[in-house]
């Protein structure tokens, strides 16, 4: 259990999302939800993997505490990114939250058995989105005891 009063370092969040509107919205939701975070943005699958593997301009990238992954991405799509993460010993333990556009899509994705840690439908309602972001924060960073970083 973490001590709630102890000042904790900011959460490193990698958002893989091609829509700047959604990126900004996530940022705002985290702000509204008072989540202390560093939000990193990869705008497609290739950038996401470069970030995770600290390549090129991401040579100094931190290891994210959590990845928010959109599935429909240019160049390399979310399913491929997820598969690379889950097959990499160094990255496998990073929780991945898959963001989907509709419940229907979510159902379909579940059948792919992609080993995502959870699926979140992007809500229309901002209030709900804030709650979702906050709950991601609480769930993954406080409630669940994550495996130690190697």
């Amino acid at each position, binding site marked *: 259990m973490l001590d709630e009063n102890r000042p904790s370092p900011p959460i490193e969040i990698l958002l893989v999302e091609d*829509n700047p*509107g*959604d990126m900004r*919205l996530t940022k*705002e939701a985290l702000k*509204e939800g008072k989540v202390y975070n560093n939000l990193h943005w990869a705008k497609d699958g290739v950038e996401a993997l470069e970030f995770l593997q600290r390549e090129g301009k991401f040579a100094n990238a931190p290891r994210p505490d959590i990845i928010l992954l959109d599935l429909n991405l240019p160049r390399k799509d979310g399913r491929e990114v997820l598969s690379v993460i889950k097959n990499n010993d160094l990255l496998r333990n990073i929780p991945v939250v898959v963001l989907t*556009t*509709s*419940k*229907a*899509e979510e*159902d*379909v994705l579940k059948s792919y058995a992609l080993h995502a840690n959870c699926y979140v439908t*992007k*809500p*229309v*309602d*901002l*209030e709900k*989105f804030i709650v979702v972001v906050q709950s991601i924060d609480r769930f993954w960073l406080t409630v669940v005891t994550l495996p130690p970083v190697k």
Partner: protein
Amino acid sequence: MTGSSEIGAILTVLGSGKGELPAQLRIAQKLIEVLPVPVFFKGRDGVYLGVNKAWESFFGIARGVIVGRPLDAIYPQAPSVAQRHRAMDEELWRHPGDQHYEITVPRSDGALRHTLYYKATFSADDGTVAGLIGTIIDITERKQAEQRQAIEFALTRVLAEAQGIADAVPAIIRSVCEGLGWACGAHWEIDREAGVLRCVDVWGEATPEIEQFLAHSRQRALPLGNEGLVRRAVATAAPAWIPDMTQQKGFLRAQLAENAGLRAGFAMPLVSGSEVVGVIEFFGRETRHPIAWLIEVATDLGGRLGQFVARRQAEQALREAHASLALKAQELARSNAELEQFAYVASHDLQEPLRMVASYTQLLLRRYGDRFDGDAREFMDYVVDGATRMKQLIEDLLAYSRVGTRGKEFRRVPCDAVLHKALANLKIAIEQSAATITHDELPEVVVDDMQWMQLFQNLIGNAVKFCGERPPAVHVSVEDRQGEWLFGIRDNGIGIEPQYYERIFMVFQRLAARTEYPGTGIGLAICKKVVERHGGRIWVESQPGQGSAFFFTLPKREGETHA
């Protein structure tokens, strides 16, 4: 004794009946004259010395015409027959004694007779051959019986062994031609729309002339009419016979037939019921008069083959209808699938920009709301409300399209378990409205259980929702009908006017004001789609103000029993 000239004189008297004979020869003369078989005498020079009465009636030629003349006088139209007889005579002169042979000869009226000729030489006292005496046995009846038997036997075998009309017809033409000694034949089908006859099959002896004649027939379409051979058989629905086609007026292929050396023609209609469905024609090289038994056989055969043809045509039509139906069903299924796919993709892609609108409007309100005046706030509320409703519509459209695209396989489930799941999902609405839900004993059904639950949930949800002032009372009934279950969901709600019975099942059709009864109007459309996907029908009966009853059927699938 007597010399050859004397014998000749005696025979002339015998044969002609004229002149005086000694008493003992008068007896012989009498005997020969009354014999029922034709008898003739010829001199060494081939000239007829005499014939008896039976001979006269056999050929239809008076003895006065033939006596003193050679045999060519009997066969003015058939030089080949005369030729054959002469050759046999020569043979006999070379090897005196007796001989017999079979030959088909024409009578003076043209009718052909199958005959056996028995001939013997007689000599003068000096031992020289003086002439011949002959008799004719008419074996036409026996020959025809044999021919008929052979042809009937061949046809029976053909009909028994043929897979269909296509391989039966050439075999039939061949059997009949070989049985009769005819040259070729063809099968014609009737194209009533185009008003023509088309040759679909031929069989013939392998000679260039016959092949040419048949090749021409194959390319030809004959107009319907009542002349000629084939056309007459079609027009009269009865066998048609042409003794000599080269002489027949209205026979379109007369010149071709002549080139091919064909004379007699016979056409047999293929009759189904009272309709002629085709014709088979046969051609022979000689002028032939109608053969009664052949016409009889052909009439019977034509009827049997006609049924064959009619059945094949019906099967063909049925196959074509099936194929076209299958094609249409395929097209319909494809277009439905495409439409569902379109709805899915469209609604999916529509959500992205919609989320932007809704989210950022909310963010605006949240951050800057305190700086808005009352109007701005109200406007923003409408934007948010519109976006939220649009989101709901899109979700509903997606759900609707998924009935077809994301359905699961049918499996056997107890219907009451499905109903209870639906009721559990409606728990809050049922409690809030103090509804009572009752149901009959429900059977096991073979369904997509998720969709079946959705069906109950939507219908009962509606019954509870559109309840008016009274607490809702809903009853789920089921009736075991032959081959299907009839479900009913009856309520005591506000009811529906008859003019809306159809419309309520259409996508996004709402009857009640949104402020009173929220909803997009997708529920019943989904119900209809689910019921139809299961092969059933859904409809409503209602008394406005009293309540509604929704009925739907479910075809029974294997292994279903009442619980």
